[in-house]
């Protein structure tokens, strides 16, 4: 192969039928036993064969962190780069090769602390890539310092007196940055996780998927309120486009907008009807913003359940498409002639 096929459009003839196993690389997986990363890896490997993308057209790009080891375990192309820079590398790759299916994988430290700026600019540029944020609210690989998503007061190796940092709200950040696809899921709900992976992939533009991921060693149970079998139903709100916001073990609670204020209503009460509930609309940026701030602790006074699903999606042009467009237009008017360029407008000859 001696030249670059820029025309590749991601669809190939005669695709062999792939199975999850085809996406398992030879590398031994080296996360701690019980780490939430395993589940995410497995679901990604389960989903990829369904996407119809040839394996060689898929690239996973990561930074540094436990989660960032991800590409090594995928039998695709992959770059395990440097801390925080996956988004920037993926941007260059996608601009060069829009034909590729590019996934960015990283931790809360990697993508939001040192890598926050690249994430901001990726989101606004809206390249057609998928971001999987493994949020475990801790620095795993460096053995347990607080991360920008750790709650205030969290005691860690670097905060023996508790942190005094106010945490980032990753989805609110992504929305404020101009993201066009914002969603949340969790390591343990594999069905929902798979669905979100597919939705993220289907979205044209930068898909930002926050995944609650349990770090058994340094922050075990951080999301137990939302992933625990017994408590999940009461604390989680699963969003579905066009459906009312209902939750609770018996689907007996709903959310209503009181002006701009969301309130929880008891659907078992006589004068409360499902028809009055907030209907989820993925394309409503204001609703999405309110949802990103459903962030109370379980049990707190004005308790709001934690939403999972697609908060927001919007159709907006992708950076690389607009760039390729410009190139095509320019090239149509006449491809560059190197001799003409070097010669320029004025020359003179010395005999």
């Amino acid at each position, binding site marked *: *192969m*001696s*030249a*670059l096929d*820029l025309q*590749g459009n991601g669809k190939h003839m005669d695709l062999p039928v792939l199975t999850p196993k085809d996406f398992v*690389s030879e*590398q031994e997986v080296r996360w701690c036993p019980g780490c939430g990363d395993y589940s995410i890896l497995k679901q990604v490997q389960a989903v990829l064969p369904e996407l119809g993308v*040839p*394996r*060689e*057209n*898929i*690239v996973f790009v990561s930074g*540094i962190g436990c989660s960032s080891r991800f*590409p*090594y375990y995928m*039998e695709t*192309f*992959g*770059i*395990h*780069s*440097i801390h925080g*820079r996956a988004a*920037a*590398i*993926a*941007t*260059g*790759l*996608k*601009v*060069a*090769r829009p034909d*590729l299916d590019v996934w960015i994988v990283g931790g809360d430290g990697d993508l939001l602390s040192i890598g926050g*700026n*690249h994430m*901001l*600019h990726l989101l606004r540029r809206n390249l057609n890539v998928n971001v999987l944020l493994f949020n475990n609210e801790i620095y795993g690989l460096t053995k347990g310092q607080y991360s920008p998503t750790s709650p205030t007061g969290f005691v860690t190796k670097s905060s023996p007196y508790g942190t005094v940092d106010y945490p980032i709200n990753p989805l609110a950040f992504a929305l404020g940055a101009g993201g066009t696809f914002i969603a949340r899921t969790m390591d343990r709900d594999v069905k929902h996780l798979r669905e979100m992976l597919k939705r993220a992939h289907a979205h044209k533009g930068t898909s930002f998927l926050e995944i609650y991921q349990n770090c058994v060693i340094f922050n075990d149970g951080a999301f137990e309120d939302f992933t625990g079998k017994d408590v999940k139903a009461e604390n989680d709100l699963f969003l579905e486009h066009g459906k009312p916001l209902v939750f609770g073990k018996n689907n007996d609670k709903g959310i209503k907008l009181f002006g701009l204020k969301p309130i929880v209503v008891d659907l078992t009460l006589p004068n409360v009807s499902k028809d009055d509930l907030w209907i989820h609309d993925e394309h409503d940026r204001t609703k999405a913003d309110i949802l990103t701030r459903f962030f109370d602790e379980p049990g707190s006074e004005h308790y709001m359940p934690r939403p999972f699903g697609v908060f927001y999606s919007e159709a907006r042009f992708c950076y690389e498409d607009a760039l390729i467009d*410009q*190139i095509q*237009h*320019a*090239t149509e*008017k*006449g*491809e*560059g002639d*190197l001799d003409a*360029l*070097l*010669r*320029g407008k*004025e*020359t*003179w*000859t*010395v*005999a």
Partner: protein
Amino acid sequence: MSEVKNRPLHVETKQDVTILFAGDSGDGMQLTGTQFSETTAILGNDLNTFPNYPAEIRAPAGTLAGVSGFQVQFGSKEIFTPGDKIDVLVAMNAAALKANLKFLKEGKIIIANVDGFDEKNLQLANCKTNPLTDGSLTKYHVYAIEIGKLTRMALEGTGLGTKEIDRSKNMFVLGLLFWLYNRPLDYTIKSIREKFKKKPEIAEANIKALQAGYSYGDATEIFTTRYEVRKAQLPAGTYRHIMGNQATAYGLIAASKKSGLPLFLGSYPITPASDILHELSKHKNFGVKTFQAEDEIAAMCAAIGAAYGGHLAATSTSGPGMDLKEEAIGLAVSLELPIVIIDVQRGGPSTGLPTKTEQSDLLMAMFGRHGESPVPIIAANSPADCFNAVFEAARLAVEFMTPVICLTDGYIANGAEPWRFPTTSELPDFKVKFAAPRNPNDPPFLPYKRKENGAREWAIPGTKGLEHRVGGLEKQHETGNISYDGENHELMTKLRAEKVEKIANAIPLQTIDNGTTKGKLLVLGWGSTYGSIKTAVRDLRDEGYDVSHAHLTYLNPFPKNLGELIYNFDKVLIPELNMGQLSRLIREKFLVPAVQFNKVQGMPFTVSELKEKIIATLNQKEK
């Protein structure tokens, strides 16, 4: 206006002339100088230019800080520098005169715009008295001309406002200089028409002013001499005028064509490198992709992504941006991906002197990353040579699968000279062969298996059967898998170093640019000091001194014969626009007590200071 009449004119022939157009930042001196230079180049003179302007966008009008200058030396012999001292000083105001008078040769010409020496301007320039009238300029030929007034007269009735009319006074001066050096107006007229395509009334006004200046020279009797500078004896060929950053951009486009790879530039604006980004972003019809990143880290990382994807990837910046790229450059070293990294050096440290020149990033290019991460380094030695340097950097990057640093600097990046440009067919091809697709039954792909020259294969996504992972952790030899094995790490460290060393086999041997291969003194330079050293050594050899000049393009690795070449001389003198960075490398490598000659004044060496130093070095007894 005085009548035009034929009067006796003395015509003097000159071998070389240096003109400095100096005025306020708003006076358009850069444009004036460029136009003069381009016309002069087309006439067949050799020339060299040096723009020198303040760091502010618009420094306060009339002040010393606001002075903007454009210096050009042209001649009928080969010209390698913009000239040490000047023959003609065009001073559009008092500050311009005051700031530059020290560079004017005695007995030479000042063309002063009288309107720029009114009370306000004198005050802004901190002049107690008017130098045009206080008798302080008796050592020079002063032509005090009411340029503003004359321009206004010439443009009366065009319907333009005073402000617009005043903007044309630089064209009046240019016309006058064209007359003085007997140059035609047509090239400039054409340029003006093009530039103001959408404002024809402005174009015509500028042309009128230009012609008025020319006629003024012809008509007035104050000029009794006109000068002739004959065509230079340049090597045969077709020439054009080119600036350094432009040549760098063209070099990348040429490398893209010759390698068959689409070009990607990741960059973040910074003085004096931004023009490379600007130039390349114009050439979308060559398929060039420019990406203005959020910062230099992202620019370098995006280049890594593009290189991984199989593009000819480059990034351009200056010192502070280089600092930021270093971690990612280390990653590129570890990934063994080809990337051209262009550092247009400027005055440091920190923000330093952003618009001034310096050569002080060489050691950073060598050692600026943690760990053992060797990177080849190439330096350009003149505006036109930026083309060759960057083209060669691209060739080596791709051939050896490595990032390559290409050093230029503010002086040559903004400078210009005639360029005997190559044709496409004269340029060497270096078509790339990516790793081939593989079948399921083929033995496993080994991404870090090396070719004879030490390079690994370039295996790009989209190639069936090549699925593999790369990263910044140490890799097992050949397989590229993560390896924490100590002996493997040492092996890989050595293989990476050897690969860079092996580049010495792929580059030309070092030659003597001028002089003998043995002798008393070798002047060893690198980068943008070429022109000054070349001129100084040529002059001194003409005067009979035993001195030779060699100039390095390849800084890492050095050409294989460099040591031998140095040992053939009694002494080696290394002039640099830094505190002795190449000196350190030469001393370390060859254990010779190189004599340093250092300057960090934001300016190139003058030929005369070099000559002085060379003579002093020749005369100095061994200690």
